C-alpha cells in the first residue's frame, strides 16, 4: 500500500522493539477478530433477512477500533458514527447485545429502540453512535469540557469517516476544541470513499483530516490504520497529550472497507483490483504475522480463534431465540420521567 507506507511513523513505529507486550498484543488481536467475525456474521444474517433496517460494516477497518480501545481507560468515552459496531464491540460490549440490536430483538443493546446506527452502552463508555454526519464531534467536545471542568483526566474519543471532514460541524468542533484546549481525540477513519464517491474527488486536499490539521494549529498525523500496533501507539500519545492538558489531537487513519458503504451497496464503483490490493494489507492476517514475528505462542492465538468463533455462534443463537421488543417500551423514555406525556 503505497499510501499507507507514507505514514510519518513509517517503519520505525512498526519497529521490532517490544514496547507493547504480549498481553496487549493478544488483546489487540482478539478485539480485531471479534469485530471481524461479528461483522461477517452481521452480513450473513442480513443475507438471511435477519438483520433489519440498514447496517454499515467495518470489515477491513478493525485495527483502528481495536488500537484506540486498547489504549483507553474504562473512564474514557467513545463517540461513534453509524459505522459504530466495531467501536462498540472494542469497548467490551457483548456481541449478542450488538447483534441483537441489529436484528431488532428484545435482547438488543437498546432493545431495538435505536438500531444499528445508534449503538450506545454508557456502562462501557460508549456514549452513543451518531447517524447525522459530524454531529458527534461537538458532542465529544462537551464531554471533554466536563472532564476539564471537573479536573478529571478522562479523554473523549471521537471516531468518524473521511466524508465527515467536509461538513461544517467538523470545522466548528476542531476550532472549539483547540481554543478551549479540550481533552478530545478526533479519529478520522479514511477508507477512501465518502459513501459511494471517492473522497479525493470531493475534497480540496489529499489527506482530508491530516491536511486540515494546520488550520487548527494541530500536528499533521496520518498513520497506517490497518496496523494495530501503530494505531495503539498513536492513541497512547494522543491520550497522554490530552490528559496532560495539552489539548486535542486529530489523527487520520488510512484504511479500506472491504464491504460497501451500507448493506444496500455492492460497491461496484471501486476500480478493479483495488479491493484485492488492500486485502493484501488486511489488518487481521497482518496482525497474526506480527504475533508470530514476536514469538507469541501459536497455541494461544489458536485458542483465541476458537473461543471467539464459539462465542459468536452462541451470540447468534441467543439473538435468534430472542423475541421482538416488548411493546411496553414504545412509550417509555421520551422524557426523563420515563414517559411521553406532553400535556396534562
Amino acid at each position, binding site marked *: 500500500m503505497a499510501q499507507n507506507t507514507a505514514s510519518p511513523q513509517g517503519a520505525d513505529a512498526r519497529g521490532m522493539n517490544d514496547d507493547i507486550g504480549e498481553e496487549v498484543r493478544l488483546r489487540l488481536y482478539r478485539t480485531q477478530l471479534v469485530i471481524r467475525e461479528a461483522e461477517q456474521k452481521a452480513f450473513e444474517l442480513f443475507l438471511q433477512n435477519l438483520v433489519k433496517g440498514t447496517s454499515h460494516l467495518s470489515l477491513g477497518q478493525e485495527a483502528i477500533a481495536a488500537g484506540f480501545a486498547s489504549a483507553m481507560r474504562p473512564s474514557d468515552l467513545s463517540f461513534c458514527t453509524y459505522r459504530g459496531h466495531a467501536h462498540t464491540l472494542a469497548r467490551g460490549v457483548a456481541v449478542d447485545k450488538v447483534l441483537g440490536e441489529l436484528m431488532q430483538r428484545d435482547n438488543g443493546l437498546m432493545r431495538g429502540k435505536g438500531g444499528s446506527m445508534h449503538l450506545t452502552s454508557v456502562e462501557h463508555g460508549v456514549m452513543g453512535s451518531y447517524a*447525522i454526519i459530524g454531529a458527534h464531534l461537538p458532542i465529544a467536545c462537551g464531554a471533554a*469540557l466536563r472532564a476539564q471542568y471537573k479536573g478529571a483526566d478522562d479523554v473523549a474519543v471521537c471516531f468518524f469517516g473521511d466524508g465527515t471532514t467536509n461538513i461544517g460541524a467538523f470545522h466548528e468542533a476542531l476550532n472549539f476544541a483547540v481554543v478551549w484546549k479540550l481533552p478530545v481525540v478526533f479519529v478520522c477513519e479514511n477508507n477512501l470513499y465518502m459513501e459511494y464517491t471517492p473522497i479525493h474527488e470531493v475534497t480540496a486536499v489529499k489527506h482530508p483530516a491530516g491536511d486540515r490539521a494546520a488550520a487548527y494549529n494541530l500536528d499533521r498525523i496520518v498513520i497506517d490504520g490497518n496496523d494495530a500496533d501503530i494505531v495503539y501507539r498513536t492513541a497512547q500519545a494522543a491520550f497522554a497529550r490530552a490528559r496532560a492538558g495539552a489539548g486535542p489531537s486529530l489523527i487520520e487513519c488510512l484504511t479500506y472497507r472491504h464491504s460497501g458503504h451500507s448493506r444496500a451497496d455492492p460497491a461496484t464503483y471501486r476500480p478493479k483490483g483495488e479491493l484485492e490490493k488492500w486485502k493484501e494489507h488486511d489488518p487481521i492476517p497482518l496482525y497474526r504475522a506480527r504475533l508470530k514475528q514476536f514469538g507469541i505462542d501459536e497455541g494461544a492465538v489458536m485458542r483465541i480463534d476458537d473461543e471467539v468463533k464459539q462465542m459468536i455462534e452462541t451470540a447468534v443463537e441467543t439473538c435468534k431465540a430472542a423475541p421482538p421488543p416488548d411493546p411496553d417500551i414504545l412509550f417509555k423514555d421520551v422524557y426523563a420521567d420515563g414517559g411521553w406525556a406532553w400535556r396534562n
Partner: protein
Amino acid sequence: MAELTYREAVARGIAQEMARDPDVIFFGEDVAKPGGVFKATVGLIDQFGPKRVRDCPISEQAILGAAMGAAMTGLKPIAEIMFSDFIAVCFDYIANEFPKSRYMSNGQLKCPLVVRTGNGAGSRFGAQHSQSVENWCMMIPGLKVVAPSNPRDVIGLMAAAVRDPDPVIFFEHKTLYAVKGEVPDGEIVDTLGTASIARPGKDATILALAMMVPRAVAAAEKLKAEHGIDCEVVDVRSLVPLDMQTILGSLTRTHRLFTVEENPRLCGWGAEIVSIAVEEGFYELDGPPIRITTPHVPLPAADTLEDMILPTVDRIADTVRRGLEG
C-alpha cells in the same frame, strides 16, 4: 419586592441557579465579557468567573453540541443562541440529537440542558432576526419549550428549566427585554407546564404567549372599557408540557376561545390547542375558536410594515369583538 427589567431578570435567573449548583455553566457568543448583545447576561462573568461563563466562537453547532456532551456527562449547561432564527443552522441538535438520545438509547443517555434564545419581532431587524420560531421546537417529541412574558416568570421558569432533567428551549422575547415588572426577593422557582391567568374574565378566553400577553391584556382592557366585554387572558407560558387543564378550565367558564400568536399562521401553537379544545371542549364552545396570528409571510424590516403584520392591540380587540358578535 424589586422592579426589574426582563433582561435583568435573565441575568438574575441564571445567577440564582449558578450560585445554587456548581455544575451549572453558561456559554454562548458574546455572553461573557460583552454581557450579551442584548445585555441580558451582564455581570455573570464577574460573579462566576471565566471557567463557568464563557464566550464562544460563532459556531452554533459547536455550542449546542458541546452543551449536549456536557449535559450527558453530568453538567447542567445553559447555552445561548443569540437570535432564535439561528436555530436553523444548528437544528440537528434541537431536532435530532437532544430529544432523541434518551429514547434511542433506551433510557441510557440524559440531556439536561437549557438553550436560551432571543425570539420575536419589534426590533425592525427583518425576516432573519425577528421571527417567532417556538413552533419549530414544539413539534419535536423529547423537547420542552417555554416562553416567559414577564420578569418574574423569566426567573422562575429559568430555574425550573435548569433544574429539569430534559432539554428545554427557553424563548426570551427581544422586545420585552426593556419591560419592567415586580419581582419578589429571594429564590424564585416556577413549574414547567403551567399556564397562568394574566387577567380574569368571563366572556371569552384569549390565549397568548410572550410579547402577545401584554398586548392581549391591553386589548382586554380596551374591550372592557369600550364595550363592556370581559375577557380572560391566559398566558400559556409553556408549550411543552402544555397546560391544557388551565386552558380547558377557562373555556368552561367563558365558552369562547381566541389565540394570539406571533408565529406565522401555518402550524402555529394555537392550531394544536384549538384542535384539542374542539375535540375535548366542543360542547363548551358557543362559537368557533378564532386564531389571531401573524400572516403566512416573512417579516418585513420597515417599522411601518412590521407593525401592520403583527397582531396589535386594536386587531386583537376588533377580532374578539366581531367574533363575539358573530
